[in-house]
């Protein structure tokens, strides 16, 4: 496991209120550093960063494989300046609005090129990790991004860095071997002077060292969130740019990615405040959850991929209202509340489970946005949490069915229960009857079997590309069992259940 270590930083700068300049990114000059060059463009902020890189900046090393975040051929790094230091994250440039590059250091494969090969490139060549080569720049950038992280704990972490990159030629083993070489050499890194070390060891060009100062010197005005209502909110864009990429350039947009006025995740008393704009990566690495729930990190590995998690936001997941949203399922089971805000300053708090009215219909006014998500977590009570997800492909795939559960227990007794399930109804489902059934019960096999009957009565899966209705029912049963098998291995055995 790579706890906290990789991509632990949210990639989101905290903006001091006073510094905010209101700019409309659709019309303004977007300013950033692309590799070692300053870019200032009047292009629409709603076009993709990918198209800008390839067809405006004419850097053709970044490839197009799918334009929907699923192949990683378009992977680039985005560096965010914070207190004089730059934090790099990988992202899929095909889903990233150009506006989201504003103020960043964007690195493409060309940005890693040295007079000879860099370390990652050399390892890829040495291990024959490239065949047709079309996926290769994406892998090189992802591994380069890994090299730029603060720590490099294990081979698994190096592999995680390329979990969003698909290759159709190699069968990955050669790439794995290359990642292993990269890992071995990174383990020698001098952590006191990481950037210098990377330059000296041919991971990156020397000009990387000047980027923080250069970005600082550019004094790029921040853009504000949120300003004008009646506009479409775009967070990471990982849903919107899949669903309607061609419509976006014509719409008035409110780019809200990275516009956090507070820390992405913060505990206040017994309540955890998650910013709507917190990314999945933020959530994945949040110490408060990692401490409370031992498998938290593993659950998030099942959510999309590293570059998507780096940009996909919590609010985006909730508002997208996909019946199979993973973060949504988790937050439903954590009995979360959402803080909705309007332009005029009005606020209201709504239990998340009341947010979903019908298929993609929300209890949300047009101009309302999700500012925060609140989760109560009392340290002293015994709260257990578990998440299960099965899809065709275990990683980087959308669930056929997912389900989450949180339980407050006392001895063998279930004091409080919240269960959610996705992929079994037109909306992400809070399983109210099942949850109520569980409360007050003693943990034992019979109870689990009866709860399954209740669960089956409140789900209504349909057949689609992710599975037949019958499969989803069976899967919901199995995954519900999975909660109890995982959380109560002493009491509940699979032999007794099936």
């Amino acid at each position, binding site marked *: 496991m790579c706890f906290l270590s990789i991509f632990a930083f949210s990639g989101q700068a905290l903006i001091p209120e006073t510094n905010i300049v209101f700019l409309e990114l659709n019309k303004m000059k977007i300013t950033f550093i692309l590799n070692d060059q300053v870019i200032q463009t009047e292009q629409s902020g709603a076009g993709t960063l990918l198209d800008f890189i390839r067809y405006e900046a*004419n*850097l*053709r*090393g970044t*490839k*197009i*494989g*799918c334009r*929907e975040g*699923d*192949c990683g051929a378009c992977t680039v790094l985005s560096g965010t300046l914070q207190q004089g230091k730059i934090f790099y994250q990988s992202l899929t440039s095909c889903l990233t609005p150009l506006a989201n590059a504003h103020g960043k250091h964007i690195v*493409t*494969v060309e940005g890693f090129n040295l007079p000879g*090969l860099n370390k*990652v*490139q050399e390892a*890829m*060549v*040495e291990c*024959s990790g*490239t*065949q*047709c*080569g*079309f*996926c*290769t*720049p994406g892998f*090189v950038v992802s591994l380069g991004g890994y090299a730029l992280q603060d720590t490099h704990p294990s081979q698994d972490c190096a592999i995680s860095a390329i*979990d969003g990159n*698909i290759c*159709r*030629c*190699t*069968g*990955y*083993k050669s*790439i794995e071997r290359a990642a292993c070489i990269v890992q071995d050499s990174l383990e020698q890194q001098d952590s006191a002077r990481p950037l210098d070390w990377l330059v000296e060891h041919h991971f990156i060009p020397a000009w990387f060292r000047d980027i923080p100062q250069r970005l600082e010197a550019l004094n790029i005005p921040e853009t504000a969130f949120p300003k004008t209502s009646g506009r479409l909110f775009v967070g990471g864009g990982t849903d919107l740019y*899949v669903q309607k990429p*061609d419509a976006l350039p014509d719409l008035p947009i409110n780019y809200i990615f990275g516009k956090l006025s507070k820390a992405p995740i913060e505990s206040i008393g017994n309540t955890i405040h998650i910013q709507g704009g917190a990314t999945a990566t933020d959530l994945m690495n949040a110490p408060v959850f990692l401490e409370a729930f031992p498998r938290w990190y593993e659950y998030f590995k099942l959510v999309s991929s590293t570059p998507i998690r780096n940009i996909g936001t919590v609010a985006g997941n909730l508002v997208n209202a996909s019946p199979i949203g993973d973060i949504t399922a988790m937050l439903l089971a954590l009995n979360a509340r959402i803080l909705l805000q309007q332009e005029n300053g009005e606020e209201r708090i709504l239990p998340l489970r009341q947010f979903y009215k019908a298929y993609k219909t929300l209890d949300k006014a047009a101009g309302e946005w999700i500012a925060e998500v609140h989760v109560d977590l009392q340290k002293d009570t015994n709260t257990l949490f578990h998440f*299960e997800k*099965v899809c*065709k*492909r*275990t*990683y*980087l795939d959308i669930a*056929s069915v997912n389900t989450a559960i949180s339980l407050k227990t006392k001895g063998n007794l279930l004091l409080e229960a919240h269960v959610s399930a996705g992929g079994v109804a037109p909306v992400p489902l809070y399983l109210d009857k099942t949850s109520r059934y569980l409360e007050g019960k003693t943990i034992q096999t019979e109870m689990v079997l009866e709860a399954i009957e209740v669960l089956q009565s409140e789900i209504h899966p349909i057949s689609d*590309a992710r*599975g*037949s209705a019958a*499969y989803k029912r069976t*899967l919901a049963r*199995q995954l519900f*069992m*999975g909660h109890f098998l995982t959380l109560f291995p002493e009491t509940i*055995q*699979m*032999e007794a259940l*099936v």
Partner: protein
Amino acid sequence: MKNIDARNHVQGKSIYLDDIPEINGTLYAVPFDAPVGHARIVKMDFTKAMNMPGIARIITAADIPGENQIGGIIPDEPLFAEGEIHFWGHPIGIILGTSEYACRKAREVIEIEYEALPVITCPREAQKQNHLIAPPRTFVLGDTSEHWAECDYVLEGKADVNGQEHLYIETQGAYARPKEDGCIWVASSTQGPTAVQKAIRKVLNLPMHKIEVDTVRLGGGFGGKEDQATAWAVMAALAAHVVQKPVKLSLHRMDDMRMTGKRHPYSADYKIGLNKDLKILCYEATFYQNAGAAADLSTSVLERTLFHCTNAYFIPNVKATAYSCKTNLPPNTAFRGFGGPQGMFVIEAAITKVAEQIGVTADQIQKANLVRNGDVFSYGQVIDKSEAHNSWNACVNTYNLEKIQAEIRAFNQSNYRFKKGVAVQPICFGISFTNTMMNHARALVHIYQDGSVVVSTGAVEMGQGVNTKLAQVAAITLGIPASWIRLESTNTLRVANTSPTAASAGADLNGKALQIACQNLMDRMMPVAQALLNTEANLQIKDGVVHKDNEATELTWQQLVLQSFMRRISLSEQAHYSTPVIQYDKTKEKGHPFAYHVYGTAILVVTVDCLRGTYVFDEVNIVHDLGKTLNADIDNGQIEGALVQGIGWMTLEEILFNDKGKLLTHALSTYKIPDIYSVPLQINIQHLDTPGHDLAILKSKAVGEPPLMYGLGAYFAIRNAVKAFNPNHDPNIDAPYTPEKVLMDLYSKRKA
């Protein structure tokens, strides 16, 4: 030697179709298609679309100066649908505009009215209604009808195997530019530049010498760009010809997935009969190939299904019939293995099921029936250099199959939730185009005055490393470092009348031609060397220096080249190679279609999570017959890549159409190919120690397709694990074994 492109690849410097710098004034093309499976076009209205900003022109069948026809083998495939739509995604025309984005916006407002016609997606249904691409073919050996009585075990059954999306990461594309005098230049991401040239000839009504097709490299092909790159190149060429401007067409992934064909799904019936010694005496199979709406390469693919329908086994009595069934799906096409894997899947299914019936393990039957020298395949080819037993024995001994099986039994006894399964997968794959006339190639070599060498052949580089192998062939034959040799793009002006790079034969055919060309150059230059060194002794060139009696002389390659040039000796050579021996008589369905066969054996071990229905492959252990490998780095890469692609086909990769012919798995979000976490935890590869084959380039056997078929074992390994959990159930044979099917089989009729 590493792939000669690797350094550029890792730096993002390699140029693919969409990376070619656009010429000023280039228009972009986006195809538009029908959102119906089968229909008559009633009315088309482009008024709104033409009024969208940036739109230059809409091109349809009406703009075609020649024939609206691109069918390669059978002329049954219009470039653009005219009057009738035959499948969901059938291109009707292209929109030309100043950007792809503008074209896509215009596409949304094209208005077309349709009158729906009945849709057939099932090949058996098509066969019933006699919707066939061509008459059925039947291969016969011995006489099954006479020998069923001798069989102690007889089993009949059905096996289905789904298609597979190529998912080359680079989508289809072409860039065309008009030249003077009505000529046209087309860059195409194709495995078959000549096929593109011929189709353009027909559609544009131009002589072939006016059409230059150029291919630098592909971002993956896998057969998907053998025939199906053609349409897009012809569209770009047609548009460029009509508007007299450069036109680029690079397909959006979803357009590519919707509009292009895939590996053929098959449904099959089989009947198998064995005696007490587990010898298979009789095998009958009927294959229903889902060809889609046009022939494409289906008839050839069908043929290879029949050729490989008994895999690596000798069966004295065989009767196999195959129907190429016409349905309302995108025309299915070549895909690594080319119908062979589907044929092999069915015999493996039959063996697995009959083993279950008898109560033995499938490997006992497999082993008992492996081909030996002197055995004959149903198509008449007598086996002479069989490596079936050698690779089997090497595999089961090296990796200790017995131990693996014992450990799995123990594991399954002591574990409830997780069950392991193992399968052994032998392969035997014939090398050569089954269409004998395609087995020839040419190479053009220029040695420049400075000693540098440039090579052009008909081979297309698509990641399989053919250019690297060709550079090696030239380097070895000329005796110079490979770095002095450049492999040029595949271009119809330089090398004409090429066969597509396919059938795993690219390195053999083009390599042999190149070898001849280089040898001819040597034959011309060596007398010069002898004259310069004043000797009649045999000379060789090594590392760019002329050697006499294994000793370096003072004469370098560069000097020799220059001196030869001064003596007015041609430093250019074009050579031709055609595979000897091979022949095939379709009227008798007998002959010797393959130059040689490639063998190997794999052991696949899987663990199934019986709670979730998911699985992980623990290990795949392979012994593969490469002959004398020319390049182990490349060959191992081909084995690993093909294996994983084969496993993907058998497990995650599920193509779903609805009954209206709409592709439901339409994007990478719904069609899942293996990612880094879904590949086997360990892949072990050993090369079988063999002398190689003279018809293989420098005795290094073809490697592109054969290892894909190790992946078949994935299906049967999972089945064995499922049966360990749910022994009462006899699951249908229906690949791929998705987690859905696994879970349903784990819990079907469990408590009988």
